[in-house]
């Protein structure tokens, strides 16, 4: 197993919001300045800690949305209704405001640019975040590894990184699956990812691809089961689950 052993205590560092971008009406990309950031791999996450004036703290995990770039770290946060941390980060949290961040964490759900194997990325909703970091790391490293992305969303308005994913990239195929509402003018009916989707938009089992699946639990369970049914070796399927256990 590929591990990134961490030595010494993972320090909390003060991060300041340098830039914020509206991703969708309910999601915001936050670019932080973190002096002394040690770097990270695509797919890793960080812990973010907020402290209130009375000393109360809350911390949550967020995937890194982009590959390492000096002291800059990028996250995309989806607003969860009534969510203690995400409501603040997608709302009042403003340029210049500090938070504390520590990481990077996780040495399993990662993609390394030196790996030439084909890659299947399957995202459900905000599960696109760590997968986008892999797409961006591939581009930054000039990797020729063949990538396919299957991105499941309720509606076209919920697409993250829409502009960037619209631009064609050699060696990256993108397939959207809409579960509630199709883009205007697109024929067909909304549906969920099924065997046929992954049979067509994924890799044949004997191509030796690595699959990265990220999204809510039910989504990840379904996709991983389909990949197994299509003959993929369980050891080539890596999963990261976040969001509620029931959608």
């Amino acid at each position, binding site marked *: 197993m590929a591990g990134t052993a961490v030595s010494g205590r993972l320090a909390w560092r003060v991060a300041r919001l340098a830039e914020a971008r509206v991703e969708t009406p309910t999601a915001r990309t936050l670019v932080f300045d973190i002096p002394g950031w040690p770097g990270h791999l695509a797919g890793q996450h960080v812990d973010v800690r907020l402290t209130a004036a009375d000393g109360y703290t809350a911390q949550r995990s967020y995937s890194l949305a982009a590959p390492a770039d000096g002291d800059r770290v990028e996250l995309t946060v989806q607003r969860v209704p009534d969510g203690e941390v995400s409501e603040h980060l997608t709302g009042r949290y*403003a340029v210049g405001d500090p938070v504390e961040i520590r990481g990077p964490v996780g*040495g399993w759900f990662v993609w390394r640019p030196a790996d030439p194997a084909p890659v299947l990325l399957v995202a459900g909703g905000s599960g696109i975040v760590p997968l986008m970091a892999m797409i961006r790391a591939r581009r930054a490293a000039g990797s020729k590894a063949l990538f396919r992305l299957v991105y499941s969303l309720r509606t076209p308005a919920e697409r993250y990184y829409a502009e960037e994913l619209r631009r064609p990239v050699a060696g990256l195929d993108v397939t959207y699956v809409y579960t509630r509402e199709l883009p205007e003018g697109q024929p067909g009916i909304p549906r969920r990812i099924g065997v046929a989707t992954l049979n067509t938009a994924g890799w044949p089992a004997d191509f030796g691809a690595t699959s990265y699946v990220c999204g809510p*639990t039910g989504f990840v*369970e379904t996709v991983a089961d389909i990949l197994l049914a299509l003959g993929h070796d369980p050891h080539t399927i*890596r999963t990261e689950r976040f969001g509620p256990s029931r959608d």
Partner: protein
Amino acid sequence: MGVVTPGFTGRAHSGDPRLPPGQYLARDFPVLSAGPTPRVRTDDWEFTVVTESGEKRAWSWRELLALPSEKFTVDIHCVTQWSKLDTRWRGVRVETLIGDLTTSADYVMARSYGGYTTNLPLADLLDGQAWVAYEYNGKPLTPEHGGPARLLVPHLYFWKSAKWVRGLQLTTKDDPGFWETAGYHDYGDPWREQRYQGD
């Protein structure tokens, strides 16, 4: 105190003394694992305990169910910050499975169907602190929660409670398991917030 984020007030603190630092109460039961959920048929299921000298005990599913079991109600704490209080389980105490084996091992590597591993001190699995659990809330444990059987060590972060557990290897050396190799803490005490190596 940490660096204050202007405008952040947080949710009214529950102040529940049973909630370790940094944890919040989950209403649902989140599922976290590194890969697909293994589906293990109870007909094929086997559980083994092997000592450092190679002495071995093994149980089939029916043999496990025939062992003395107990019902217990415990709080569980995941390193991703959620906790659940008063979860109800049934299982066999680990010391029942270790039984009459002779060992001077201090550590255990728990091994799972699907290849997952996690390391624990043997002492943490004895004296009614740990079980091989096969029922949750009065029902058979579902595959996504580790069924047919999982290790349950409620006083440590939940990644130590290996799902789909298939055996315990007693060892004299403390080798890191799956998440421990990926940067998580070797012991994982939620009350001391031992989340990552070095905490």
